[in-house]
Each structure stands twice: as structure tokens, then as C-alpha cells.
């Protein structure tokens, strides 16, 4: 029987871990490349100023890297500790990318990380540079495998349900690996990491310029940061578009929540800015927005590459739309229940060596297999994720991403014309944009994961079926243990980081 409190606390613990983990990972992804670029300039020019710059940013990278590891280890094991049903039902597919990540990426990162930090006088200049690049590549490879796993949760392909083992089993590794959803997510995620790394370098360098401290190094750093940021911001926009296109194709309920779209139709626009009506409930006639500014045609165009494309809304997804071939969710739930019951009969018949009944049950199961996960839902309305959280997170993320592009452009322009130190407002905005970068990244993950609800595996396995059979108190205990621990470590990280920055760019 479903234990709502257990599900919610398990969700809360995973969300806590993921949110904390994502405070640190983007900087690792982005700063590792920026540091590698800086060291490349040092090796090419032989200018020791670039070596000092590299070492400074590398120190900040290490402080961040350590806490990223600390929060990351929990995530892998939480699939077992808190989501043990999930681990069995989809472990045959989901476990592989995690194991491959360990073999192909983690060892590369951890081995060459040591050379990067302690090998300055132990290996040649070229070998050191090679190691720095390998740390960057290793951390990005790690993201690749994680996002292959996550992409599969959003768009499960390359598998078949085995009624004998009662789990999904992989039948095409390459379908899982080259899942279009995984690639759009991977590129968009690393893109956000590159932008975060750039914001960090630009923001801190801007602070030095405002304080008139380490001006030469700060100017050199800001040019690298803003150039990398400008290029990767454009990359981020393109990959974001592709990511949203994949959502439109595979996760219509998430798209409807992202846009607050209750009534779908053809030729739908995008809400550029809007405020949701807090009194709006699914199924009522109230207006969904208090106000909104819409860009006509845009959602159909961006989502389906056709201005006249049909986009289903929340109401169509719940109540169905026969004209567009959309089944009511209640029908899917009924079929899901038939599948669950047929699977049970199949298992019992197999146990009793009753092959005729087993075959009959199997045929019935296969006919309704597609809806298996729906059978565990109680209400048709459950198929819609929390609208307000998904909508505001999405729009805030997009708005901030646009601002970052403008910021990098202005910083680079003024740096090129030699007037950056006089642009106090731009420099202050650059400093303020560091936390905004973190906010945008977190919002992105909220869109991806809250928007996936109520599913652990989209349309296959609801979150409620995926948890371990634990007591609520056990999960509450560990939730608070890790909440306190991670908060303390975050405070430590921020204090150390600020002190290092205040000390200046010398002697690192």
C-alpha cells in the first residue's frame, strides 16, 4: 500500500541531495575547461602571469570539486537505499550507465586531478596540461553517463518488460546510449555548467576590478571568462531549444505545465511573461493567467517545428481529445489495472504450472503493457506535475539565460574597447549574476524533475511504486542528518572561497 508520507520524505531527501549536488557540479564542469584554456595559454606563451592565473582559479576549482564529490556519492547510493523497488524494476537498464561512468569517467577525473594539483614540479609542462584537460574531459564524460541515465528516465527506450522477472530489461544498449532526449539534456546541462563557470570567473574578476586589486590578472581572466561565456550562452540557447523540442515530443504533460497550458489547440504561442491565476484548478472554467504576454505561434513552432502544430493542454491530457487521438487518462488507468492484474495471474499460473492460463494472461498483459504504470495511479489528474513550480522555474531559467548572454556580450565589448574598468554598473551586475547562475541551474533541474512527476520513469513507473519499504522516521532521520551536514559544508565552502578570493590572486 502506498505510504504518502514515505514517498514525500523519500522525494524530499533525493531533492535535497540533488539540489545541493547541483550547487557544485556546474562550476566543476565549466571551470575545469576555463582553467584548461588558461593553462594552455600559459604553455603556449610561456608567460608566468598566466600560470599564476591558472593556479588561482585551480584553487577555487579544488574547493568546489571536493564538496561536489561529497554530495555526489549519496546520489548514486540513494537509488538503492531509498528507491529499492526502482533499483530492481529498472536496474537492468539504469545501473549500466552509472557503472560505466565509474569505469570511464571517475577514474580519469580522480587520477589526473592529483597530477593537476600536485604535479606542477613532478611532470613535464605538457603532461601537466594534458592532465588538466583530462580532468575537464573526465568531469564532462561523467555528466554524459549520468544524463544518459536521466534521459532514459524522461524518455524510456531500448527496453522490454520481462514478466518472469517483473522488471524492464535492456534490449538495445545503443538506443539507450543515443537516446535523443539524453543528448539534448547532456548538451544543455554541460552548456549550463560552462555558463556558470564563466559567470563565476567574470563575476569574481569584476569584483577585483571594482576593488582595483590584481587588475592585470583580473582583466585577462575576464576576457577568457566572457568569451567562453558568450559562446556557451549561444550554445545553451540552441541546446535549450532542442531540449524543449524533445519534451514536446515525449513529455506533453511536462510541456503543458511549463507553459501553464490548460486548453490545447493548434498554433499555440509561448507565454513570454505571465502570472498564473492562483485560484485556477484543473477542470474549472477560470482563466489560467492573471496576466500574460504571449509570443504568437512560438510554442507550436519551437515545440514541433510547425506554426500550425497541435499542442495538447492539461485538460486534453486528462480528459482526452478524440479529434487529436488523445485517450483520456482514466482509460489509461483502467488499462493499466488490467495489465497489473494480468501480470499477477500470469505469475500465479506459472507457479502452478498452468501454462494455458499463463499464456492467456500474458497475451492480455502484452495488450495493455503500455499502460502498466498508469495502473498504479489513483486519479486521472495525478498525471499532471505541479504547474506553478514548473511554470515559474522554466520562465525564470529562460529569463536568466537571456540576461547572461547580454551580460557576457557587454563585458566582452567593453573589455575589447578598453573601457571595462569604468563600467561600474556592468561590473556590479556581473558580481550579482554569480548567484543568479546558480539559481538558473537549479530552476532547470526543477523543470526537468518536478515536470517529470508523477513518474519516476516517464509513463512507465510512478514514483509511488519506486520507494524502499522503510519507515518514515528512518527517512526523516537521514534527511535531517544530511540537511544539517550539507548546510554546514556549504557554509564552510563559501567562507573558504570568499577568504581565498579576498586574499587575491597571488601565491596559489
Amino acid at each position, binding site marked *: 500500500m502506498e505510504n504518502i508520507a514515505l514517498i514525500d520524505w523519500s522525494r524530499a531527501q533525493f531533492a535535497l541531495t540533488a539540489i545541493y549536488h547541483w550547487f557544485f557540479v556546474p562550476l566543476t564542469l565549466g571551470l575545469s575547461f576555463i582553467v584548461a584554456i588558461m593553462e594552455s595559454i600559459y604553455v603556449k606563451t610561456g608567460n608566468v602571469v598566466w600560470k599564476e592565473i591558472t593556479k588561482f582559479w*585551480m584553487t577555487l576549482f579544488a574547493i568546489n570539486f571536493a564538496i561536489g564529490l561529497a554530495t555526489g556519492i549519496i546520489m548514486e547510493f540513494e537509488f538503492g537505499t531509498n528507491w529499492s523497488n526502482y533499483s530492481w524494476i529498472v*536496474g537492468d537498464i539504469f545501473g549500466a550507465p552509472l557503472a560505466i561512468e565509474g569505469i570511464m569517467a571517475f577514474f*580519469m577525473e580522480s587520477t589526473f586531478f592529483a597530477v593537476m594539483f600536485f604535479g606542477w614540479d613532478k611532470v613535464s609542462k605538457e603532461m601537466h596540461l594534458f592532465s588538466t584537460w583530462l580532468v575537464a574531459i573526465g568531469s564532462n564524460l561523467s555528466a554524459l553517463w549520468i544524463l544518459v541515465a536521466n534521459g532514459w528516465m524522461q524518455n524510456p527506450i531500448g527496453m522490454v518488460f520481462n514478466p518472469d522477472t517483473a522488471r524492464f530489461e535492456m534490449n538495445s544498449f545503443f538506443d539507450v546510449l543515443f537516446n535523443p532526449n539524453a543528448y539534448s539534456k547532456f548538451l544543455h546541462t554541460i552548456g549550463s555548467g560552462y555558463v556558470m563557470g564563466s559567470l563565476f570567473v567574470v563575476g569574481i574578476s569584476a569584483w577585483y576590478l571594482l576593488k582595483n586589486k590584481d587588475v592585470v590578472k583580473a582583466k585577462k581572466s575576464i576576457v577568457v571568462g566572457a568569451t567562453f561565456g558568450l559562446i556557451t550562452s549561444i550554445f545553451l540557447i540552441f541546446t535549450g531549444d532542442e531540449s524543449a523540442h524533445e519534451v514536446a515530443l515525449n513529455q506533453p504533460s511536462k510541456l503543458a505545465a511549463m507553459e501553464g497550458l490548460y486548453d490545447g489547440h493548434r498554433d499555440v504561442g509561448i507565454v513570454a511573461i505571465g502570472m498564473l491565476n492562483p485560484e485556477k484548478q484543473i477542470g474549472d472554467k477560470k482563466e489560467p493567467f492573471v496576466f500574460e504576454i504571449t509570443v504568437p505561434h512560438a510554442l507550436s513552432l519551437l515545440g514541433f517545428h510547425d506554426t500550425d502544430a497541435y499542442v495538447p493542454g492539461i485538460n486534453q491530457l486528462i480528459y482526452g481529445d478524440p479529434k487529436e487521438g488523445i485517450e483520456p487518462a482514466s482509460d489509461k488507468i483502467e488499462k493499466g489495472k488490467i495489465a497489473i492484474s494480468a501480470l499477477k495471474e500470469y505469475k500465479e499460473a506459472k507457479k502452478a504450472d498452468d501454462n494455458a492460463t499463463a499464456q492467456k494472461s500474458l497475451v492480455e498483459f502484452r495488450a495493455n503493457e503500455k499502460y502498466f504504470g498508469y495502473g498504479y495511479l489513483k486519479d486521472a489528474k495525478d498525471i499532471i506535475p505541479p504547474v506553478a513550480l514548473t511554470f515559474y522555474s522554466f520562465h525564470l531559467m529562460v529569463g536568466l539565460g537571456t540576461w547572461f548572454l547580454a551580460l557576457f556580450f557587454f563585458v566582452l565589448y567593453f573589455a575589447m574597447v578598453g573601457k571595462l574598468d569604468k563600467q561600474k554598473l556592468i561590473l556590479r551586475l556581473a558580481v550579482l549574476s554569480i548567484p543568479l547562475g546558480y539559481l538558473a541551474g537549479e530552476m532547470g533541474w526543477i523543470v526537468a524533475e518536478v515536470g517529470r512527476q508523477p513518474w519516476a520513469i516517464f509513463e512507465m513507473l510512478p514514483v509511488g511504486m519506486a520507494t524502499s*519499504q522503510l519507515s518514515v522516521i528512518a527517512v526523516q532521520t537521514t534527511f535531517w*542528518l544530511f540537511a544539517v*551536514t550539507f548546510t554546514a559544508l556549504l557554509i*564552510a565552502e563559501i567562507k573558504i572561497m570568499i577568504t581565498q578570493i579576498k586574499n587575491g590572486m597571488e601565491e596559489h
Partner: protein
Amino acid sequence: MFESLSLLTLQQYWWFILSLLGGLFTFMMFIQGGQTLLNTLAKTETEKNIIIASLGRKWELTFTNLVLFGGIIFAAFPLLYSVSFGGAYYVWMAILFCFVIQAISYEYRKKANNFLGQKTYETFLFINGSLGVILLGVAIATFFTGANFVKTDTNLSSWTNHTYGLEAVLNPFNVLFGFVVFFLARSQASLYFINNISEESIVQRARKQLRIDAVIFTLLFLVLTGMLLMMSGVEYHKEMFSMVKYKFLNNLIETPLILVVLLVGVASVLYAFVIAIRKNATNGIWFSGVGTVLTVLALFSLLGYNHTAIYPSLADINSSLTIENGSGSHYTLTAMSYVSLFVPFVLGYIYLVWKSMDKEKITSGEIESDNHHY
């Protein structure tokens, strides 16, 4: 290549890989052992910094090994992953906590304005090296002694008690297993310092400490082995499970290869102790390392092969897990087997990198002149 192998062969292959990884992980736990010796072997701040530097350049490999160990169980034996992690909840969570606090301690320990203070981070390292290691040993020992779980026809599991793994620390075999791993880690840490550090005062203290830890380890290991060989285990044939007396002793007798691997492994570890204590040798860590890997490989082989349950259920013997009923599918194990071909390549570059990084032993001069040290 792997496609033509039977499912059973693939299951055995992956149990072997897991065992090998378990052996490498146990070897690499000299890092944890070293963390518990920080205040014993170092009498000055510089000596402490030398020990931290010596460990700090390798701690991530052990950490990565743990992550990979978890990943391999998840991918190759998802039912073991699901049942053990989801059931022995408090133990695994406590282990994870011990590793979380390790991950930041090297980097933050000496940093200015580090919020918690140097002592706290050193305490974190001690907790990781002691409680973390002992609990890991306890958790792994439950694979031999079992746990109170049941699984349904659809392989979903639940525990029949509400202590969620806490009961594992009341089992003498589990606790003994934890302490054996702990004293092995400390013994290997001393062997490692003797090999990696040139500071004579530390090396002398490490040799002295090795005499104590090696003796305790050897005694505890003998008792543990005796208990293991006297223990009953769950045997299965197809889907029939039964409790068999002296199951692990039988396994050892029936598979002489495992006996040979075990004997060579134990002899190699003991040889490492003897040459380091009696002959002042510095290369003991390599003998001990190879010996540890072989010994763990043999112990895991006793557990996983010869129709033995890898995780016996104390609540319902028919719910016990084996490499056959708990593994991934033929397809996934095949795909993963191709990935496993990368492992020698990974081990190769780790070896080459560390050869170049460790060609000179760590000295106090290096630590005092290096700006970026832990």
C-alpha cells in the same frame, strides 16, 4: 564475443569482477587506515602535513573505487543492490555519511576561515577511517550472515524488522569482520607510509605501529576464518534453498583453486608484515596489496560460487539472493562485459601516472615549499 556465453557464465564473470573490485577497494583502504594513524605517527605539524599529503594525493581513488563498487552491484546484481541498500538502511547511510565528511576534509582542513576548524576536519578523517571502515566490513559481512528480508513474486523486497540494518552490528561475525578490515587498513597504511615517505621519524613510528596492528589483524583474521569455515550457509539448486552446515568449508574443499588463492593471498600479506618488521623492507605494501586482493577474491568466491546464496534471508530462506536470481539480464551483462575490457586500460594509466608522481618519496622540504598542499 560475450554474446555466446551463457547467462550463468556471465553471472560468474561479473561476480569475479565485483570480487576483484572488492579486493582492490580493500587494498586502497590503506588511505582510511592512515587517517586513523595521523595523531599516532605525526608528532609535529610538519609531520602531520606530510602524512596528509601522502594520503591526500590518493584518497580520491579509494572514494572512486567505492562509487564503482556500488555501480557494479547496481548494474550487474540489481536485486542485491535493491535488497541490501534498501533494507540495511541505517548502516549504509552511516557509511555514506562517513565518506561525505571525508571528501571535503583534505581540501578544507588547512584552509583559512574553514568554519569548522582543523581539528574537526581531522576528526572527520578519523571517523571515516574507523567507523566508516568498520561499518563497511559489517555491511559486507551481512552477505555471509544474511538479513531479515522477504521478497515477493515480483522481486520487490521488504524487511521483517524495523531496525533497518542496525541489528547487523549485534552479530559477532559481522562486527569481527569490520574490525579485521579496520586493522588490515591500519597495517597497510603503515606499509604504505614506509614506502611513500622519506621522513625517518615517521617511518620508524610506522614500523613500530605495524607490529601492533599486524599482530591484532592476524589474530582476528584467524578467528574470523575459523568462524567462517564453521558457519552454515544457504545452498540452492534451481529454486530450492536449504541451510547447509559448514557450507563455506565445503566450498573451500570442493574448489581447490579458491583454497590456493586464499593461501597465497594470506601468505603474501603475512610475508609483507615480516619483511617490513624484520628486514626493514620498504616494498611490503606491494606484497600486502596483492595478498589483500587475492584474499578478498577468495572470500567473495566462497560466497558467490558453488550454489551459494550471496545474501541469505533469515526471514524466509526461499527469498535468499544468489548470483543467478539477483543478476542483470543476459543482454545487459553482455553489454557491460564489453565495457569491462576498459578496466585494464584504466588500471594501466593509474599505474603510469602514479609511477611518475611517486618516483621520489615525500619529504618535509617538499611540503614546506609547496604552495598547494593539503
